[in-house]
Structures are given as structure tokens and as C-alpha cells.
């Protein structure tokens, strides 16, 4: 049995619960872990819970990549467009990143979606069209 499995189960059990209910869940969780003889895993569970939280936060995050800070304002409009078009989930928070290698344009990245309007991709495609 892994600490991560207990952490995942606990996260799921705690979701949507108020403080009083959460206390009950935690007490029951301790009983279960004790009954299975896995109390040795308890010190590792908080770290796993932290990892799950970090991962969940990353899933709620959308990264806006631009080639420089100057053009960012321009591309934020594109971000807002996709946000209102519901292509990005409602609970998404935006994080801005500068990556010079994309040359120009922008990229919006979420956990499972990439909206790519970078010049780098267009130039690579152009190169492939010419050379193939």
C-alpha cells in the first residue's frame, strides 16, 4: 500500500465537506489505517496531499506564453476570447510566461489543450513544406 493511494482517497473523501464533517472523515480515516496496520505511512501522507494540491492547482492553470512582455497585452485579448468562448474552463487562472524561442505570436497551454499561434510553429511548418 502506498501513502499516495491513502492521500488520494482522503482528498476525495474530504472534497465538499465542511469542517465538522471533515473531522469525522479524518477520525474514520485513522481507524481504517490503524485496522490495516498502516500507521507507519501516516508521516508520508501530508507530503502526498501537498503534491495532489499542487497538481490540482496546475490543472486549473492556463499558461499564456508570449515572445516578450511588450506584446503580452495584445495576446491577453486572445486569451480572453478563448475564455469567453468556453474553450478554457471557468475556474482557470492565468499565468504569464515569456519564451523568446517562440519568436512571436502566443501559446495558451492548459493540462490537456494547446492553442498555438506562435511564429515558430508557422516557420517550422513552412520549412517542412519547402523541404518535403
Amino acid at each position, binding site marked *: 500500500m502506498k501513502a499516495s493511494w491513502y492521500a488520494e482517497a482522503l482528498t476525495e473523501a474530504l472534497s465538499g465537506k465542511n469542517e465538522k464533517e471533515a473531522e469525522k472523515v479524518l477520525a474514520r480515516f485513522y481507524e481504517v489505517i490503524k485496522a490495516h496496520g498502516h500507521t507507519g505511512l501516516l508521516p508520508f501522507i501530508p507530503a502526498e496531499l501537498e503534491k495532489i494540491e499542487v497538481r490540482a492547482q496546475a490543472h486549473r492553470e492556463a499558461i499564456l506564453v508570449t515572445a516578450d512582455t511588450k506584446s503580452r497585452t495584445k495576446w491577453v485579448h486572445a486569451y480572453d476570447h478563448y475564455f469567453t468562448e468556453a*474553450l478554457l474552463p471557468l475556474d482557470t487562472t492565468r499565468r504569464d510566461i515569456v*519564451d523568446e*524561442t517562440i*519568436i*512571436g*505570436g502566443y501559446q495558451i*497551454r492548459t*493540462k*490537456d*489543450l*494547446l*492553442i*498555438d*499561434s*506562435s*511564429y*515558430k*510553429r*508557422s*516557420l*517550422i511548418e*513552412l*520549412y517542412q*513544406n*519547402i523541404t518535403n
Partner: protein
Amino acid sequence: MNTILIEKIRKEIEALEPKTKVERIGTVVKAGDGIAEIEGLKDAMMAEMVVFETTEGKALKDALDHEPVVGFVLNLEEDFVKTVILSGAERIREGMVVRGTGKTLSIPVSSAMVGRVVNALGEPIDGKGAIKEEGRLPIERIAFGVIDRSGVDTPLHTGIKAIDAMVPIGRGQRELIIGDRGTGKTAIALDTILNQGSEPKETRPICIYVAIGQKESKVARIVGDLEERGAMAYTIVVVAGASDPAAMQYLAPFTGATIGEFFMLKGQDALVVYDDLSKHAVAYRQMSLLLRRPPGREAYPGDIFYLHSRLLERSAKLSAKLGGGSLTALPIIETQQGDVSAYIPTNVISITDGQIYLDTDLFNKDMRPAINVGLSVSRVGSAAQTKAMKKVAGKIRLELAQFRELEAFMQFASDLDKETKDRIEKGRRLSELLKQPNGHPSSFEKEVLAIYAGVSGLIDGVKVEDMRLFETKLMEYFDHHAAGVIEAMRTERAISDATEAELKAALASFKSVHHELFIA
């Protein structure tokens, strides 16, 4: 620089307008041993091709000529997708972006592949340049159904007398070649490929030799031999060598089948040799264990039977409505210490339409090819045998089976009656007649001639040790003095009464000319 090229570049740049592309992506969470665990990739499909974004953070100059790293999805799990990396696994990093292509794994197919050596992805590896593709076909597909098929009715001559007479193979059949290591399994498959050179061009099958997990030196020797004998003119070699990742070894036979199907769908005949499926099973076991699929018997995954059955089911003889093409399969299985009851051999034996069993004892007794007639069988081949071969080969199997039984009995008996002695002597002569050196396949009509001479009693007076000389002289005699008989058998594919009369007369004449070969 070439002005046409400059003009092309100028036009492309003028038309350049960065377009927004929306793609499904995931992130590499874990990678190792050729397997990558990916988070994200919503709506991923089984066997979907994925591309690892190795150019991320790289300057345009470095990104331009970057070889993409490709993988394909094999496990769809609750939170993750597990993919197998096909090449360049060392370039995968944690956190790397992976793009879904929305397409299942496919390979380029083309008639221009003939004469080339390709890898499991259909890419040329012989240094002869790119192959112009005529299309792409998915590597996995459901085999043709009952309605789309027709019965196996056309022979595929191997050029090996023992096989064509006793274990005949038809076009569209799946015939297993099984035996211990070093018993001549590959030699039989290669002789079959070489023999297709003697077929008329319009009915000659395209041969595909799939080397799975073999030493590169062995494959190089095979390709060299095929080239030297002119067989590469109608052959394609698919290589997933011992140093290639297990994923490539797993894909190679499917690539071979896909190329074969391409020709079959064009109405042509194709022959595909899978050398060998034991190594293929081992590669699949390795992948499955790394993908953490539950192991079963001998640690093979539960779907190992389905893996080989879905591969071999793709062999077919199509109905006339679909062009009448065919795909014949010659899978090879290596046994350990002659144990045909092991897991993989029994699986493949039950899937195929018969097997050619090569015996180590016979091989050591200098019987080449070392075919064990008792354990070898062809379940559909006799329906595809030519009338001429059927006529002469009917008796030979029975005579040889009786001889093998008597031979075993003879070890304990001291005194034998004349009839038994004669039968044993005839069996010995017939066995000698069926011996054939490596790389010397016979044409169909010469096989018929040799076997006719054997079963008609002409060899009764020949010493066992003179049988090889007898056969050589017989062929020479017919080439020079009775070529009409050979030609009649070739064109008629049967022995008519008139041809048989001529054949008998020519054999009698041969006996009188070469009386020194016969004991008085």
C-alpha cells in the same frame, strides 16, 4: 541557389500567415524503459500516435531539423495514458509536452517499396533514398470476413520437393515453420522466396521478409543473398533488429502484414515471412510487463494468443469481387529442445493452417531439409495442389511413413523378410530423393519429374549413395532430350495420358543410356 527553389520559398513566405492551431496535449509524468506515462491527453484513443514536443524551448535554428519522437498509446488508464516510445526514448524528459495526433498508427505504403529494406515504421533504412508513398494504411486492422474471402485454390510453390509434395502450401494459407534453433527454418522461408523468381512475372507473389529481433549481421547476410540471387526484385525486407526497441519488434510483423495487404488489395499475391514469432512474443511480453499489465503463463500477458491470431488472420485469399489477391503467411517459431507443447508454439500451431516441423535428429542425420513428415501437415494446401503433383505425390507420404516405422522396428530385428527389406531400401532412396541443398529450390515440373521417377519404381535399381547423382543426370537428360515433356507439365499443370506415355518412354530411354547407375 536554384531559381525554382528561391521562387518556391518566396511564394511560401508571401503566403505565410500564422494560423492558430488547437491541439490536445498531455505532459510526461514518468518515462523509462521505452514507456512514458502521460497526464492529460483527453480523449486519447488506443493505438493513437502521439508526438513528443522535443523542440520546446529550443531556438528555431535547432528546431528545424529535429527528428520528432513518436510514440503510440497502449494503455488508457483512469488518470494517465501509457505510451510506448518508438525511437529516441533518451530524449524524453519529465514535464515534456506530448501532442495527440488523433490518428492511429499507420505506415506509408507504395509499390516502390519492392527491393527496399525498411524499418517497422516503413521508413527506408538501406541508404537508397526516400520512398515515394502512394498512401498510408493503419498498422492494425480487422481481418477480412467470411464473405470477402474465397477458398485457397492456387498453389504457392516453395521449390522444396518434400514440402510441395507432402505439405503443400496454397496462396492465402498460413503455414507455420517450427523447429529448434539451427534446423533450417529460415532456409526454408528463403528458398520459398527464391523460388518465386521462377514463377511467371504476372502471377509472381511479392515477398515480404520480416526480421524480428535478429542480429543485424544475419539480416545483412540474408539481404545480400537475396540481392545476389536477384530475389530483391520482388522482395521487401522489414527489419526490427535485436538492438531495436521492443516496441519496434512488436510492430514489425504488423508492418509486414500491412504492406502485404496493400498488394493483396491491388489484386496481387503476396507472401510474408515472420522470422520469428517467438521473439515477437518475447518483445510483447517485455512491453506488457513494463506497462504493468498482469502476467499470465510464462509471464506472457493474457492477450498473447489474440496478438498472434489477429496478425495471422490477416492472411487471406480475397474473393474475385475484391480483386482476388492473396496474402500467404509463413510464420516461424523456434522451439526449445523440440518441445512443441510449450505455450507460444501450441498457440501458433492452433492458429495456423498447418505446420512444417523440422527435426533436430533428422538434421543431424544429414536429412536436409529436416522435415518430420509425421508431424508436418497442411490443412488446406492439398486443395491448392496442381493435378500433376497430386498424381505423383499421393503415394510418397504413405511410403515414407511406413519406412520410418519400419526403420525404427529394424533397430531391434535381426532377420527381415525380403518384402520388408525392399520397402526399407525404397524408403531410403525416397528419403535421399527428397534431400535438397540450401538455396537450390526446384521448379515445379522438375519436382514432379523427380517424384514420378521415385514412385514409379525407376529408382529401385539405384544405390542409395548414388541417388544425388541419379537426380542430377535425370534432370540433365530431360533438359537435353525430353524438354517437351517438362514443357507440357509446366503448361498443363497436369500429367495427361499422352504426357505420361512420353514421360515413361523418356524414363526408359534414360535408364538405357545411364545403365551404370542401376544395379544389374
